[in-house]
């Protein structure tokens, strides 16, 4: 069997291996390719976060479940990193019961990341707090617009919320400079806009899965949402703006590389096929 024969009848497990490696590599070690051009919406998200001074209090609501993790978890990570880097003070919550575990992990990992990479040491209670989950969706948002401490009397771990220094001077949603919702559906940014943003005149940005991004456009046009990150692409663009390649960048790179790998394989295969003179046979 000569070389061209071997290549044309290549055991497909080699192709499986190549594709697997190409997709895996950028996850294990995220790197960047010139290919991600931030859209205006992602820039707006970044600029809104970037414009506030050190020490500003912001609220992040991670409204997603494990099903939407690959798209929204990188957004949560990048937002936390951005906030820690800028030394913002953050209150994190979720409207989705199944989101609790992911938020805990994201906070823990990124506090460690901030220590390693930005030289800051965010303190729990002072710089950040995770207030957990409450049932009710839109009712929670409405309640927070009136009095947060009544809605969330304790943090996620049962400690009275009022004892955290970060909550000093925070009464309602109005006391946050920015509210962020990373949402995978209902309850999500729609509830935040309808029941929180409009009434309390909040600066609101969001992130969402690729499927529901069309639902965000009316709010963006109306200015109720200042910017939005759409799907894994949006997360990758945010990472690009932050200049910290993360898992979303890895994802975009992986997809690009895998597609190019297929193009390469098909091209090579056809060149060899034609060069070996087989195409002349009927």
């Amino acid at each position, binding site marked *: 069997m000569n070389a061209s024969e071997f290549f044309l009848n290549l055991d497909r*497990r080699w192709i*499986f291996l190549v*594709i*697997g490696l190409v*997709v*895996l590599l950028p*996850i*294990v070690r995220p790197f960047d390719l010139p290919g991600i051009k931030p859209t205006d919406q992602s820039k707006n998200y970044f600029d809104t976060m970037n414009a506030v001074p050190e020490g500003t209090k912001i609220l992040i609501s991670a409204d997603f479940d494990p099903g939407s*993790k*690959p798209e929204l978890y990188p957004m949560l990570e990048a937002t936390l990193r951005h906030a820690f880097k800028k030394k913002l003070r953050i209150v994190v919550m979720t409207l989705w019961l199944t989101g609790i*575990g992911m938020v805990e*992990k994201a906070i823990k990992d990124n506090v460690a990341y901030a220590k390693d990479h930005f030289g800051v040491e965010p303190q729990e209670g002072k710089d950040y707090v995770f207030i957990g989950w409450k049932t009710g969706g839109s009712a929670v948002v409405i309640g927070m617009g009136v009095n947060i401490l009544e809605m969330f009397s304790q943090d996620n771990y049962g400690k009275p919320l009022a004892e955290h220094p970060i909550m000093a001077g925070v009464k309602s949603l109005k006391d946050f400079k920015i509210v962020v919702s990373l949402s995978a559906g209902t309850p999500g940014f729609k509830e935040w806009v309808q029941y929180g943003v409009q009434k309390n005149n909040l600066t609101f940005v969001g992130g969402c899965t690729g499927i529901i991004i069309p639902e965000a456009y009316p709010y963006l046009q109306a200015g109720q949402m200042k910017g939005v990150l759409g799907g*894994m692409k949006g997360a990758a663009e945010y990472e690009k703006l932050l200049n910290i390649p993360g*898992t979303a960048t890895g*994802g975009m790179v*992986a*997809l690009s590389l*895998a*597609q190019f790998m*297929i193009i390469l394989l098909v091209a090579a295969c056809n060149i060899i096929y034609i060069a070996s003179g087989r195409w002349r046979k009927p």
Partner: protein
Amino acid sequence: MTFLEILGIWFATAMTLFILSFLYKDNPFYKLAENIFVGVTLGYSVVGAIWKTIYPEWVVPLFSSDVGIWRKGFLLIPGVLGILALARIIPKLNWLSRPAFAFVMGWGAGVAIPTAVDAFVLKHTSKTVSAILPGGEFTFGAVFTAFSNLLIVVIVLCVLVYFFFSIEHRGPIRVASRLGVLFLMVAFGIAYGNTVMGRMALLYNRFFELKQNASGESYFATPILVLVTVLGLIVHEVWIKPRPPGTEDVQLEKPPEGAST
């Protein structure tokens, strides 16, 4: 994390890896995952049928005092048909199930006719002919749009010609149907290329999950299980003697009578 959560992560990771191991070759891990998969989904559909359909849609209204006697009577029909469909289990009473199947097939056929006319024929015809010429100024863009719209009509007609069954494809019909096949190939190529990225994203999501489960918090589920799977495959390959080809795990509890002539 609670014990159950960690157990869940381990289980999910193992299932993911076992399914992926099939890409190398069929192996006991895959068979294990496959049978768990089939069992679990069977159970899921039973639970769904009972708790999401039969109980709320049938039992509850049948025994509820809110529902009038007429509606209850109507509700008996699908129940009876459903139970009659079960008569297939008993070969002699097989025919009892026929009214149920007739109902289902007749219903499907009836609903399909107007749907086919409206949603397929009318919708696609109207979209094809609605905008041959764009209004407005005579620019390059407008000319190109007009060309594209005309091209759509030509492609639709050519591909439809390809589908003629009862006319011999000769002369101009042959040309049109040949063009139709080529247009189909173009369309299939485009559709193929268009879906690749979505599929890659699915794989990326699985790998993402595996990476998340590799951390110390989940007690290094991914690396340990990868090791176990790989070692298991090696053991299976090297130490467990492969059976002679052909007999391997083919379920031949009976001789295949149909094959003997």
